[in-house]
């Protein structure tokens, strides 16, 4: 009796289940983390810079300084996530040693490996990974990801890519569900995804782990849109602390995420929240500026 198991897939995926219906906010200081927590965020993502600033700064974006991560962990009682570069398993080891609650192996940072993602099975800390379609999501889950977020296009304040990716994942799930079992092997090949996971998707009618929406949410209505399209919850990167009134925006996004089916409440929470972050039109992005194409 009372022997315990740690780092199991159940407890990794389980924490993501507890975050459902909530908003996870990017923060760069303990003060911002406290604002996020007070506004009702279910977790924060500790970063050196928000994606919009990473975009503006250019160059190589790496894991945040442990000093920043630790100071944010001390400031709040909600879970703290942090980003590691795609394939950079040592950054992930460092974040695990700091005892962050979730690692985001993220295309927002500059990839460290253009071929392989981190082998996430060998960690006790759970990972969330980005995906633009079902095959990508299932490849990440096969590598050990316990949570998925559709990628969108980070740091743009433009929700169009977030919508595209979530619709794509959902359309492909419907396709898997309606495909006869005998034809799933072919479909798995087409999706470049492991057959056992494709079978699991057919059984469940959804991804086998929680799927949040990321990359472009910049207003309460954006958050509610992603929830109506079937997201389990919302990541807001630059959308809170690049807006003119972060405190008000944070609260409004949380309430709109909860009441996503009630336009009257969304209208009410959208009053007096200042200006959303400035947005970017996708056509103005050069191919090299598209973060979503990293680590597919």
């Amino acid at each position, binding site marked *: *009796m*009372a*022997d*315990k*198991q*740690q*780092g*199991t897939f*159940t*407890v990794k995926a*389980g*924490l993501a*289940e*507890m*975050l*459902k*219906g*909530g908003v996870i906010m990017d923060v760069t200081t303990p003060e911002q983390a406290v604002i996020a*927590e007070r506004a*009702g*965020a*279910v*977790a924060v993502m500790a970063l050196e810079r928000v994606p919009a600033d990473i975009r503006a700064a250019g160059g190589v974006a790496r894991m945040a300084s442990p000093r920043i991560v630790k100071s944010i962990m001390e400031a709040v*009682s*909600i*879970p703290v996530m942090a980003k590691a570069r795609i394939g950079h398993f040592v950054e992930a080891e460092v974040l*695990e040693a700091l*005892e*962050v*609650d*979730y690692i985001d192996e993220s295309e927002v940072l500059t990839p460290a490996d253009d071929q392989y993602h981190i082998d996430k099975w060998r960690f*006790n*800390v*759970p990972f969330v990974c980005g995906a633009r379609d079902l095959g990508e999501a299932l490849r990440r889950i096969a590598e050990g990801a316990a949570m998925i977020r559709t990628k969108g296009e980070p740091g743009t304040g433009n929700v169009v890519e977030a919508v595209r990716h979530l619709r794509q994942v959902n359309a492909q799930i419907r396709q898997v569900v309606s495909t006869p079992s005998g034809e799933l092997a072919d479909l798995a090949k087409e999706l470049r995804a492991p057959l056992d996971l494709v079978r699991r998707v057919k059984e469940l009618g959804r991804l086998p782990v929680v799927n949040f929406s990321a990359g472009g949410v910049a207003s309460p209505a954006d958050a509610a849109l992603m929830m109506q399209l079937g997201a389990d919850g919302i990541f807001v990167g630059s959308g809170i602390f690049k807006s003119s009134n972060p405190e008000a925006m944070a609260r409004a996004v*949380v*309430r709109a995420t*909860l009441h996503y089916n009630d336009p009257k409440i969304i209208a009410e929470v959208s009053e007096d929240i200042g200006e959303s972050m400035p947005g970017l039109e996708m056509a103005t992005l050069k191919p090299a500026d598209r973060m979503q194409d990293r680590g597919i």
Partner: protein
Amino acid sequence: MRIGVLAIQGDVREHLQHVVQVGAEAVSVRTVADLANVEGLIIPGGESTTIGMLMQEEGLISAIQQRVANEGFPVYGTCAGLILLAKDVIGKSPARLGLMDIVADRNAYGRQVASFEADLDIVGVEGGPFHAVFIRAPQIVTVGSDVIPLAYYHDQVVMARQGSLLVSSFHPEMTEDTRIHQYFVEVVANRVMTS
């Protein structure tokens, strides 16, 4: 029998599924009006700060407190739900119901890397040990004289009951085992018969 699951944030779906599996009708509760239609309520796992704040905004805290005071309304809190039901919480405290005579310590088992699974013997739950999933779990550090401990992990109370209020540090909705939901349904059924 209609059992509500507080559907503000957290693993609502898993609780709804378990309620259906034990033969009760499962209802999502988001508003005070929803609450009026259920005979018992489960508060799921999630972030207690978020759930507490939004419960307060919806007027659900006082509505639940009234039903518990007036009619012994049964409430079962898992993890975050335990924190919301606790009379006192160590450290930073979210807005909460504060109905059960226990003191809770949030995330007392440590951060996510310390989350774990373990088998427990539970008083009143027959059929062998219950496989329990603890995720950033709170501890019950003090129990009042009216509170009956139902399960221990390393001498620490992890499940308890006070009248028709039930709490667990762990998540019975994270496994296929529905015995604890069955137990709660019986708590609700017995209260209905005696009132």
